């Protein structure tokens, strides 16, 4: 056979540069690789409703916890001379915000009647002359504190209980599940009411009752997920390498449980806020003179026919808080589990 191949000289070769290499590599993944959380965050950002809810919550958090800066009056200071004044925002002349109120068919200036001088109350005053705006801020803070406390117990107790129950299995699991079943068959509110009666109404009683009731759902979901994860190969590998159970649960289980935990957390929070408002509303929660959205609604409801703003504003704030948490929760569920919305 005639060898007519072209003779090759060294000049035909040249070193491959980095630019050439990336051009040649058809297997290269050009998009940056995203972690699970980054990917979920990207999906969440596309969800307009959830982002609005997140922003609303951030604003409420700042207003409530920075209430020292925003409060125009002391939330608990009474001033009987200036009781039941309607909202007045300086510079705005719209009925409902200019300090006037309908009295027997005519609109009168309530501030002039009460000789309030230059004083103004953004959302008016209640039946003891306390500033409603400051009281709503204070009540919102109580609600958000309850939200944080409920999340803490959910994480500290519910997650641990679920992981231990699912991971240990066997007799331990059976006993732990029986305890949960018993707790589930008592309505949460009944447990809370009993505890509050024993501990005397107040913030600490509410915290204890939330500690006892809020974690159950989380524990069940975490357990179910742990049971599923437990039999997967990466856990087997970790065990074969001799990792301790504690390390496996922190390094392998928790990251894989994070979506279940975060989603459920977003449903615990509105429930806890609702229970606090509910207990305060029926009169065994936060006690006077402290304000809670529940007590404010209860107070406002008595005057609803004549001074509707006293109930509307706390009710709107409470509802907005609950709606925001629910929408954000839905958004998080969709972003962590894209299957659920497609």
């Amino acid at each position, binding site marked *: 056979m005639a060898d007519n191949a072209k003779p090759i000289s060294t000049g035909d070769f040249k070193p491959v540069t980095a630019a050439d290499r990336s051009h040649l590599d058809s297997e290269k993944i050009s998009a940056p690789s995203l972690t699970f959380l980054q990917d979920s965050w990207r999906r969440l950002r596309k969800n307009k409703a959830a982002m609005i809810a997140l922003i609303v919550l951030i604003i409420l958090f700042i207003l409530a916890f920075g209430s020292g800066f925003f409060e125009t009056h002391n939330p608990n200071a009474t001033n009987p001379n200036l009781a039941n004044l309607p909202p007045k925002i300086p510079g705005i002349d719209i009925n409902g915000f200019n300090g006037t109120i309908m009295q027997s068919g005519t609109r009168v200036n309530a501030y002039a009647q009460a000789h309030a001088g230059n004083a103004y109350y953004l959302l008016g005053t209640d039946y003891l002359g306390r500033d409603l705006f400051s009281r709503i801020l204070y009540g919102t803070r109580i609600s958000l504190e309850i939200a944080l406390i409920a999340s803490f117990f959910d994480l500290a107790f519910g997650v641990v209980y679920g992981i231990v129950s699912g991971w240990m299995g066997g007799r331990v699991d059976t006993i732990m599940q029986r305890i949960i079943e*018993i707790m589930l068959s*008592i309505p949460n509110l009944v447990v809370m*009411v*009993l505890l509050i009666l*024993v501990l*005397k109404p107040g913030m600490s009683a509410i915290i204890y009752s939330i500690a006892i009731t809020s974690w159950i759902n989380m524990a069940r979901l975490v357990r179910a997920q742990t049971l599923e994860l437990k039999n997967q190969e990466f856990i087997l590998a970790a065990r074969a390498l001799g990792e301790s159970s504690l390390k496996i649960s922190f390094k392998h289980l928790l990251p894989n449980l994070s979506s279940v935990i975060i989603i459920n957390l977003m449903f615990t929070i509105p429930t806890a806020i609702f229970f606090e408002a509910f207990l305060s509303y*029926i009169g065994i929660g936060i006690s006077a003179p402290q304000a809670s959205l529940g007590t404010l609604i209860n107070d406002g409801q008595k005057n*609803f026919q004549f001074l509707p703003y006293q*109930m509307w504003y706390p009710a709107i704030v409470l*509802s907005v808080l609950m709606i925001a948490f629910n929408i954000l929760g839905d958004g998080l569920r969709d972003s962590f589990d894209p299957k659920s919305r497609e």
Partner: protein
Amino acid sequence: MVKYLGKRIFYIILTLFIVSTITFFLMKFMPGTPLTNQAKLTPSQIHQIYKQYGLDKPVWQQYLVYLAGVVHGNFGVSFQFSNQAVSYLIGSRMGPSLIIGGQGMIVGVLLGLVLGSLGAVKANTWIDTTSTIVSILLVSIPSFVLAVLLQYYLGLKLRWFPIADWGGFIYTVLPTMALAASPLAETARFMRTEMVDVLSSDYIELAKAKGLGKVGIIYHHALRNSLIPIITIIGPLTVNIMTGSMVVENIFSVPGIGEQFVKSVLTNDYPTIMGLTIVYCAMLCVVLLITDILYGLIDPRIRLSGQSN
């Protein structure tokens, strides 16, 4: 089945036993005495009253007496209404609560099913958006706010329904609406997710390929299969109704057990609180048992756990 039932009923009895034990000892730790003005009573009078209510015996004997009473449906005598048995008090107030609770549940679940399946069938249209917004609003607005607003606008302003009190059917309308909100919203949310899932499954594709009409597919295949999981949320919905009824009955002055519970809590009527706690637990246990059995009966794929062993 019999084995499973036996096991479940045993657990219900165990639960009720534990609950009555805990409530009994909680009430014993309660500060204060049942006497209204102790200072005015002589020691012999106090002793006499304690003897009358069995409070002079040691705590463990009181506990046994109490347990024996609970087994016979006797929860003692109310502190608030002197000489009225708690069991009679609860029995006479059960009716209104069951009526508005049952109506609220039925109305809520039915409307929720309609709203949820509309949202799923018309997914990602304005109908879906509306149904989502309605369910988020109803699940978020607290029942006591909703009840007050309904009472004011539909009762006082429009005068369509009586503001409060208890009489015929017309009196149940507003409380039922207030109670139905939460089951409606929860059912709609759950139903939408389920139905979207079902609509994308293979057997729906098959039904479409066979040339079935849209109505036939939705009614015969999608709706029926998405209905089954709804049974699992009946238990949580019952809890919602119980919780809601406590304020809703109060706002509309319905003479039910929810209103009684709040009243007893505010007046420290311990025997009534204990009795109602046990009644609430028993009702919830029975509802959970019924839903579990129904679930097994309706969906043959689900094996009751007692059977599989």
